[in-house]
């Protein structure tokens, strides 16, 4: 199960360097970072549990299913946070001053 999170870490290069409201931007980035870390962790955990299940190494079926669902939820959360940040950045950069 390939981990797709690293490729999503690539954001518009200058997003962290927005001049106005940089402090706010920082906090959003932090949240995004957190959600990315969590999504990566959850995906790894799900992969491990499913592999153990299929190897007959003793993972409970319901635990593996829950791990997969959590990986999915974490991923969705991360995508939502990322999209909102990108959207906000685009709105700000489109403003005429």
């Amino acid at each position, binding site marked *: 199960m390939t981990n797709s999170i690293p490729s999503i870490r690539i954001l518009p290069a200058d997003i962290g360097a927005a001049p106005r409201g940089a402090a706010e931007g920082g906090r959003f980035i932090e949240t995004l970072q957190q959600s990315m870390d969590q999504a990566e962790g959850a995906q790894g955990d799900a992969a491990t549990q499913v592999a153990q299940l299929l190897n007959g190494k003793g993972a409970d079926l*319901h635990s593996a*299913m829950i791990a997969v669902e959590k990986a999915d939820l974490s991923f969705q959360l991360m995508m939502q946070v990322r999209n909102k940040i990108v959207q906000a950045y685009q709105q700000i950069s489109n403003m005429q001053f």
Partner: protein
Amino acid sequence: MNLFGMLELSGSALGAERQRAEVVASNMANVQTTRTAAGGPYRRQMVVFQAQRVPRFSLALAGLHPETASAVRVAAVVSDQRPPVMRFEPGHPDANAEGYVAYPQVDPVEEMTDLLGAVRAYELNASAVQATKNMINQSLDLLR
């Protein structure tokens, strides 16, 4: 739910109880057998059940918590060691010098009771298999 292990465990009981029923059927079929290839009357057969500690690296029972799960197996099929039932039948071809014929120690009532026990235990473990399958399906359903 540990898929393979759980079904194997209940399955072991289904197999053992079935074997027990087969032995009962054999006893019932031979209740009148006074002559066998080994000489003498048919000897009543009995199964000996034994709890099977899960071998640590057994793939078949993989995933079960070792200190808890015990599958069951038929350790042996043994002959009833009680002496045969002697009946006075001087005209019988297998009668001994005193006119007694040796009959198997098979009591139909005892055998039927045993069979009922085997059937009940079989049904119980079939329910356990059904319950396991339900829980497996529900676990899979978590992702819907």
